[in-house]
């Protein structure tokens, strides 16, 4: 029992230490990014990797989730004879909730894991040490462009997701179940207000920061964790950790933002 408590205590302390390091990395990176010289090409390159190369995945998942949402809402609303509310239900569900959350989770799986693996391998092969020794800040060179690209890309991807998900809902409601097009479209336009769009935007900006920051920190600080001395196995361990932690962070912060910005 005491051993179990000891283990739990150690895990909690390790978690707090990592959270502190992650905040430290954010502040350090922000400070270093503000120092000249300013380079925009690395940010554009990371936006291509995190954003542009995720578009096909976002379109496929957006259409699918929009269709599923349209289908489920149609069955539920049909029970109460309110299928004319389908457009409103799909639009609000996607823009306020599913768009930002699902986009962030897709980015975690596609780009976040790759970011952690890249930094973890750079750490184990002394490439990050080499950067330090060349007087090049790894925060500015490696972490900063990824975090900024994440903050810029996730909202853009979220809007693409929202658009195609609304189209998926339209396809199911109007094309498959013959819900009047006018009621679907007008219901959507009437129901969605600026606060809903703003909520989705705020969520996606925060998710973009959280996902890239956590994934960067897991790889960057790999040497300070138990996985540090395990080579390839260690990289795999921190990559899994990064995916799990950033997914939890997305879901938990989704609740917090939803509670603070109703």
């Amino acid at each position: 029992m005491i051993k179990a408590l000891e283990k739990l205590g150690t895990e909690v302390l390790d978690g707090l230490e990592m959270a502190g390091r992650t905040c430290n990395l954010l502040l350090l990176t922000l400070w270093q990014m503000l120092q000249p010289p300013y380079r925009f090409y690395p940010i554009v390159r990371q936006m291509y990797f995190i954003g542009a190369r995720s578009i096909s995945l976002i379109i496929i998942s957006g259409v699918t989730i929009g269709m599923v949402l349209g289908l489920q809402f149609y069955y539920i609303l049909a029970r109460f004879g309110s299928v004319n509310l389908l457009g409103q239900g799909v639009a609000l569900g996607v823009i306020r909730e599913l768009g930002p959350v699902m986009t962030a989770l897709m980015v975690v799986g596609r780009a976040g894991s790759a970011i952690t693996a890249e930094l973890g391998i750079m750490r184990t092969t002394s490439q990050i040490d080499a950067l330090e020794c060349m007087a090049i800040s790894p925060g500015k060179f490696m972490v900063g462009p990824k975090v900024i690209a994440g903050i810029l890309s996730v909202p853009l991807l979220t809007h693409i997701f929202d658009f195609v998900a609304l189209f998926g809902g339209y396809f199911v409601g109007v094309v498959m179940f013959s819900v009047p097009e006018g009621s679907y479209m007008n219901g959507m336009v009437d129901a969605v207000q600026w606060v809903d769009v703003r909520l989705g935007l705020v969520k996606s900006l925060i998710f973009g920061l959280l996902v890239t920051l956590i994934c960067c920190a897991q790889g960057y600080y790999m040497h300070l964790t138990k996985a540090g001395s395990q080579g390839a196995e260690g990289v795999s361990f921190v990559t899994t950790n990064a995916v799990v932690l950033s997914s939890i962070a997305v879901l938990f912060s989704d609740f917090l933002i939803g509670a603070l910005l109703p």
Partner: protein
Amino acid sequence: MTSPTPSLNITGNAIEVRKLTVDYGARRILSNIDLDIPSGKVSVIMGGSGTGKSTLLRCILGLKLPTSGSIHMLGTDITTATTAQLYQLRKQTGVAFQGGALFSSMSVAENIQLALREHTNLDESTIQIMTRIKLDMVDMLHAEHLMPSELSGGMTKRAALARAIIMDPKLLFFDEPSAGLDPSTSAELDELILLLRDSLKMTIVVVTHELESAFKIADQISIMGKGIILATGTPEEIRASADPEVQGLLHRKPRETVVDTEAHLKALVGETS
């Protein structure tokens, strides 16, 4: 044989290490190390595995903070230096890591040019010319456009060396330059180190466990054993050392032979059961 002097002599020594102690948790890795690295010479730090050579190098490079003690590099105490001071100092140093540590997403030329692009405002043609000069010095001109994954072990080390000298550093560090190389490539690398010392007047620090290579290139050798410096001196002084541990390392004596096999086996069984 010379022993490190306790007073700081900034002009004669590029690096001065005083009372350096490093602990990893409860384990003491380096204990009260005193070491002087003279300017313009090749200094070799030698020792067996687990003696703390790499930890000492990491401390000197500012990659690991010691538990106590000081390290003066080109007049700056790097244990108390700010990040800005440390980065300023690092612009005057070059490091060739054991595995090369080339950036895998960049070609050989891009790896070499990185420091120039980050720290200078040189135009593109000058950067290209400087890259080709350094590549030519390490006989890698033909590999300019190759990616690190396409290089052999020797080529990787030479590319890492070209990257380390691109800013014409005052101080150059090598971590195990000969490790994993065939004798011929290893000898070529030794010649290159001597060429750099003579032509560019660099202070060179080599961490190695290769005896032949060490005695060929060194102006000063420091022998490490279990977290301490056993001896420091010229190759001749080290050869003449009376220290049994130094002699053991020089003559590659194996660990104490097991005489009583039966008792040894019993002890092993006792330890594991």
